[in-house]
């Protein structure tokens, strides 16, 4: 009997002793209480934010990456210089985007919102922890400024994207309460507390403030002391990137003052002399030279750091290695069906066809957009012939996102987010609008000189320009289009120019600001219908919004 009781007691004690087994820590998640325990954890959050911008999300998520932002804008502007892929009717999202018909319950909208705000939330977390509850390791004081700067940069980048999607073009009802976006600025605890919509004005003010902060905090160049432990830094924002983005934001605001501000900012990155690019103190001595090989910015091998004097101010790079990541990079709006550019589904954006349409089977060697299709390498190398039998005929389709070979499969995992060429042509346009025609011509020629084989600089009197300011503006707008073709600029440019004209008279040609035509309907630049709807999930799950916050139309 004694033995039994002894045994039973032992069994009982063993059982009680196993109580500690009830505390099983999660094995695959880092508790939020751990995230601020080290500087590298905070750096990981920044990585997460960039990663989500370039390629995050399950393979079939739509609106998951920077490429989708580009393709979405292409869809909305298509018909002007590009038109959708013949496959586009197969992809509901692309098709609906093209028709401005995305309903609020379209899952793509929720994904778009979730992905943009994921990066914002990560940036907010870094801002919170770095300032109020910082890691205690020795590395933190070295990295603090950089981390804060990157967080501000990321947040501004995402807000800028968001305000263009959901808010009207700056200048139209900009001060209307609730016409802007959710300016989430605090650390996101559990997602049950949301924020309401700001005005467009407030959103732009916040974006520019954030970029000011980023400019102050970000390093100008690679610093081994600071960056050696963080190889991903190669693909992170620098001071020049913050300034360049700020220039783009000012440019998009489309007022004489913001144009001027944009030009000043561009000069801080490219140097003050139109027609030339020089290093500045804020580029850390780096010169963002335009490269002769126009393919390079789009064809860069994932993990190679950009050359010292490339035109990339910021390139985003997906995933862990040169051969990984494409699967997550491209399974999005593009419905990418293969690495082969001929098989890129909805990513097959086509340059507008010449008139008349070349006969089936014969290559397209002329273009209503390119004025020197024989020598312009942006035409000959960044677009390619593709022959469809039947109704759609031959096309020139984009190779910007599909030049890569099967072996490397880099397509769409390397995104030149900010290029010097964008700033050069931006400065040309601003100068032209401001009446500084010689300066404008200098930058215009700089762009063309690098792209067109055997190019001779043009003067104001060149027939394509016609000797007038208006002619120069019109031509620079075309040149911008040629340079930024398939990079998602067209839609935003259209809105920008229309807004500028609305405030300042017919500076831009009427054809450039004419309403978009979709079937029998026309859409003006400030039509409610062309705003994206706010995702149903945001409306129903965010108590600060409610269904009344939806965009009209």
């Amino acid at each position, binding site marked *: 009997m004694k033995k039994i009781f002894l045994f*039973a007691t032992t*069994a009982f004690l063993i*059982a009680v002793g*196993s*109580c500690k*087994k*009830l505390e*099983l820590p999660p094995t695959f*998640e880092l*508790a*939020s209480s*751990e*995230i601020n325990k080290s500087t590298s*954890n905070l750096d990981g959050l920044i990585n*997460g934010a*960039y*990663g989500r911008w370039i390629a*995050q999300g*399950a*393979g079939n998520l739509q609106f998951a990456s920077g490429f989708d932002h580009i393709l979405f804008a292409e869809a909305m502007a298509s018909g002007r210089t590009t038109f959708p892929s013949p496959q586009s009717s197969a992809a509901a999202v692309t098709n609906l985007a093209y028709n401005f*018909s995305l309903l609020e*319950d379209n899952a793509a909208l929720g*994904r*778009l919102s*979730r992905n943009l*705000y994921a990066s914002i*939330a*990560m940036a907010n977390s870094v801002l919170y922890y770095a300032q109020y509850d910082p890691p205690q390791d020795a590395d933190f004081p070295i990295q603090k400024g950089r981390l804060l700067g990157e967080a501000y940069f990321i947040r501004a980048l995402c807000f800028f994207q968001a305000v263009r999607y959901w808010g009207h073009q700056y200048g139209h009802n900009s001060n209307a309460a609730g016409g802007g976006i*959710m300016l*989430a600025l605090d650390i996101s*605890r*559990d*997602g*049950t507390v*949301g924020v309401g919509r700001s005005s467009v004005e407030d959103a732009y003010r916040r974006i520019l403030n954030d970029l000011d902060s980023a400019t102050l905090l970000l390093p100008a160049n690679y610093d081994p002391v600071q960056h050696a432990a963080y190889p*991903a830094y*190669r*693909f992170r924002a620098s001071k020049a990137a913050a300034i360049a983005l700020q220039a783009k934001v000012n440019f998009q605001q489309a007022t004489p003052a913001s144009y001027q501000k944009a030009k000043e900012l561009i000069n801080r990155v490219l140097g003050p002399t139109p027609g030339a690019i020089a290093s500045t103190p804020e580029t850390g001595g780096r010169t963002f030279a335009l490269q002769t090989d126009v393919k390079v910015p789009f064809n860069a091998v994932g993990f190679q750091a950009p050359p010292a004097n490339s035109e990339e101010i910021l390139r*985003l*790079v997906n*995933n862990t*290695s040169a*051969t990984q990541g494409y*699967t997550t990079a491209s*399974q999005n709006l593009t419905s990418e*069906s*293969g*690495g*082969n550019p*001929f098989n890129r589904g909805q990513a097959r954006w086509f340059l507008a066809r010449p008139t008349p349409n070349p006969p089936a089977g014969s290559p397209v060697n002329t273009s209503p957009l390119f004025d020197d299709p024989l020598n312009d390498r942006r035409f000959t190398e960044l677009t390619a012939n593709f022959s469809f*039998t*039947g*109704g759609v005929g031959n096309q020139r389709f984009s190779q910007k996102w599909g030049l890569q070979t099967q072996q490397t499969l880099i397509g769409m995992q390397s995104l030149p987010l900010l290029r010097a060429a964008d700033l050069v042509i931006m400065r040309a346009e601003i100068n032209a609008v401001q009446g500084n025609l010689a300066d404008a011509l200098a930058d215009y020629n700089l762009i063309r000189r690098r792209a067109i084989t055997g190019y001779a600089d043009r003067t104001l009197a060149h027939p394509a320009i016609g000797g007038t300011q208006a002619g120069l503006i019109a031509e620079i707008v075309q040149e911008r289009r040629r340079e930024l073709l398939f990079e998602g600029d067209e839609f935003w440019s259209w809105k920008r120019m229309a807004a500028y004209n609305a405030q300042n008279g017919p500076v831009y040609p009427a054809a450039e600001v004419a309403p978009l035509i979709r*079937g*029998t309907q026309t859409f003006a630049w400030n039509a409610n219908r062309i705003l994206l709807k706010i995702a*149903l*999930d945001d409306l*129903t*799950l*965010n108590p600060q919004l409610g269904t009344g916050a939806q965009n009209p139309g």
Partner: protein
Amino acid sequence: MMKRWLLLLALLCSAVVFGQDRVTVSGTVVSRSDKQPLEGISVSVASDRNTGTTTDRSGKFTLLVPRNARLVVSGVGYPASEVAVGNRASLTIQLESTSAMLEDVVVVGFGTQSRRTLTGSVSRIRGDEVAQIASTNFQSALQGLAPGLSVANSSGMAGAPVRVRVRGTGSIFSSGDPLYIIDGVPVDAENSGLFANTGRGGAPPANPMSNIDPNDVESIEVLKDAAASAIYGARAANGVLLITTKKGKSGKTRINVNVSYGFNEATNKVDYLNGKEYMDLRAESIRNSLATGITFQGNLGGVPAIWLNGGYNQWFSNAVPPLNYDSSVAAQTAAQNINHFEDVFRKGKVITSSISAAGGNDRTQFFLSGNYQGEEGILHRNDFKRFSGRANVDHRINDRFKIGTQVSGSYSKNGVYPIGPLSQFAGGFNPGGFLNATNSVLPIFPKRNPNGTLFGVPQTVNNLVYLDENLYFNTVEQQRYLANIYGEYTITRGLTFRSEVGTDFVNQVNRLYMNPTITAGGTQGTLQGVADSRSRSSNTLNTNTYFTYKTGYKDHSFDVVAGSQYTGSTTRSSWIQGNLLPAAPTLNTTQVAGQISAQDRLDEFSYLSFFGRVNYNYKRKYLLGASVRRDGSSRFGANNRWANFPSLSAGWVLSEESFLRSSKAVSLLKLRASWGLTGNSNPGGVEPIAYGGYGIGGAFYGGAIGYPFRRVPALADNIRWERTEMIDLALDFGFFRNRINGSVNYYRRNTSDLILGAAPPPASGIVGGRNFANIASLRNDGIELNIGSKIIDGKNFKWQVDLNAAYNQNEVVSLGGLAPTAVAFGVNRTFVGMPLSTYWLPMYLGVDPQTGFEVYAGRMQKDGKEVLDANGYPVHDPNNRIVVDPFGRINGTTTNVNWEGISAPVNGKPGLPVWSGGLSNTLSYKGLSFAFLFTFNQGNWIYDEGARTQAFMLQTYRNVRREFVENRWQRPGDIASNPGVFFNPITQNQQSTRFLYRGDFIRLRNVRLSYNLPVTLTRRLRMDRVNFFVNATNLLLFTKFPGWDPEVVGTIGFQDFNNQPQNIAAGQTNSEPPQARNITFGLQLGF
């Protein structure tokens, strides 16, 4: 010293006295059922238990006993019985085995109980009932055998998993599966997605229960109410299935050999158009489209100019990359009708063989078995085989101490045919499986080109790639070892202590290979083949330590159990996937992959529990029971680590009362009632609900890890078990010496604290996961009825009928304030005041006679505002007719129909059955026996997603089901039930009530004809038993459901966002393969 002498003297004297009255008795102990001699039976004198012996091989014994003694005869498997010797010198004693008496004794948690004094609801299923149904897993065989136990097979594929529910579905986001306990060990029964591999390559999840051999099962007890199940506490809310394996009996060693051989085929085949009909319909659809006069994207009727001739070659000439086809063959077959069903289905074979040996003596008993089952499924390359073995040994060291073990091991291999459509899988990972194979390979397509290659491009046109293992294979291998050892010590009369240590080890390996030529884009694609290996090892350690005390005083009886249980489980899952493979089929390992990704994960949980139970009865007439369990679990949030689960029950055996005792009609009448609390703490394979934090590994950037946001622990710490409060009222009855017996039960299951969570709003920036909290509640009300009747019980002819039926009504009581869209999104959503699995669809009203377009109901409106129902949900208004053109626009406008805006909950058409049950008949005449079992479901509605994709004429290669062509609109004025056929209509993408079907069915589940050779003959053959049988499973089906099979489980192959489609979308099917019809011939021999 003096005392010792006195004692010796007294003993001597008494010996002299007794010696004068002793007689020698000899006898034989035989089994009551078959009159076979029993070896190793203990025979002792009741008044002097030290005087005794055991029977020999012939069941004989000889014993010197006092005159007029009473003998106590007992053995393992044979409860003690007393026999008066009287003045007989020789006697034959018949013993009834425990198994024969088991109708009166049921296994309950940590013990057994007499059915007469039982106050809980327990259904018992005999092992032989389970073993006779041809199925690769025992769960499938439980269908229709017990009231309130709902069993549905996910498909007719060999090895397919099963949905098992006890008294309705009791959860929304967590698992609804019952707890399975085999010989005391809670086992891993989760249909494993093998680390999220479910659906990848179309593999249905692996079912670890398919490794349990039905032949080894002695009985399965289903614990249904809280009185029975609360002793399993936090894991018992969905019911408990106690599986007891066979044990040896003392006596002659019995050898049983069972062999059977059978054939399989599909129970049903859906009817599609033949080649000519298809081509004619295609032309008609183009004519109809053009005749609409309306345009889409600049194309009249939506038909691009290139398609105008409807030509066959258009598929091929426009394809990128070019298709692999021979144009001359294509031209020849353009109007042919090639039956590709033959390339998908086959007549399969089933072979089972088992051998077992059982026996022992009064000290040691054993049961050994070895089994093999091999099944060729009804689909080509779907097969299952299993080898298993078992050794159950019990040994009595002395009168007080008993030890034993149950050990089993098994290995199975399941070749899996993919299911589901292409669209379910990211990146075109699955070429479409069964669904596409049956209707995308058109009857006008030849199978192969003249050079032997598959006609068309495998990943788009030709889904017969599964025929060729060089192109595709998908196998799941499982090994399972279950071992349990116990020691039981009788401390004093009635008080025993038992300790059990058990382990359950399951190892699953899934290998998937897809040749580069069959993944999307082929050898030019992104994937370029898949070589994927996934494994999951689950190891559970369980200890049960408990005291049992049975005592009585006069008319009072007590039965007390108290003890503790510890369960710890570790599951390690890992996968490695290779892509960019060479096309050479022999190179199908990840070693040759151009790109490899891999991951592993660890899931652990543990429970520590203390439990107790007291059953009391007075005169076996007034019954009381109470149990309590205290559970601690790692699965609960840190702030809710411990929980208590009590139950109370009472019974009144009216038939023991004086006013009924003498009744000849009433043999048993018992009223019983119970109340109790149980919990569900099984997240069901979803992401661990109790954890939060910043997830690692979601995003990489620039070669470094990036942390995405997840939930925070503040929420997770408060997660607790889902709580089910159940009341049960029942009447057990037996009439005419129990020739008619049964019970009627009413129950109510109120489940509260259901774990539910909305995804955080997108702009929160939190990615993945949900804000889980215990907020929702659910109610299941039900009535269960079972009646058994020996209609004829003659000497030679017997007829037994058993009917069981269960009614269940399920209702979501609260969603804790969450909007239905926040809980589930899609065809099934959850609405307060309605059953789980309620459909949310636009209402299809029929066909517009003028245009042939589809007509839908708008929502009810009044004064420009929507009218909402009592629960605040929109309602359909059949009078508000919206004619929708083939481009999804309101007819006559360019406005797209807002499908979400005309959707509403579908009332009165739940996805889960209201009534289900079974009816069995057993007729026997001498050695001949004939038995059949019908099972039925009533009241459920099936949403057939597969039908939706086969109801329209698509531009792509997809045949049309005949049901959608019959009585179709063809010209203005036609009053038709099916709309006109238009070319590639956009409405094809719209789910609606058009594809909602009544799911009622009655199935002749099993028919068995068997013959036992007469004993005279078997003796001559030196055998105990020779039995021949023919068994037919799923022979007939009565249903109005036009799809493949009305037995649906909620697309088990596909994980929806919350991973519990079987709870929320229980009535959805996506053209899963139909059930198999099986006819088996067999032989059972006993030596």
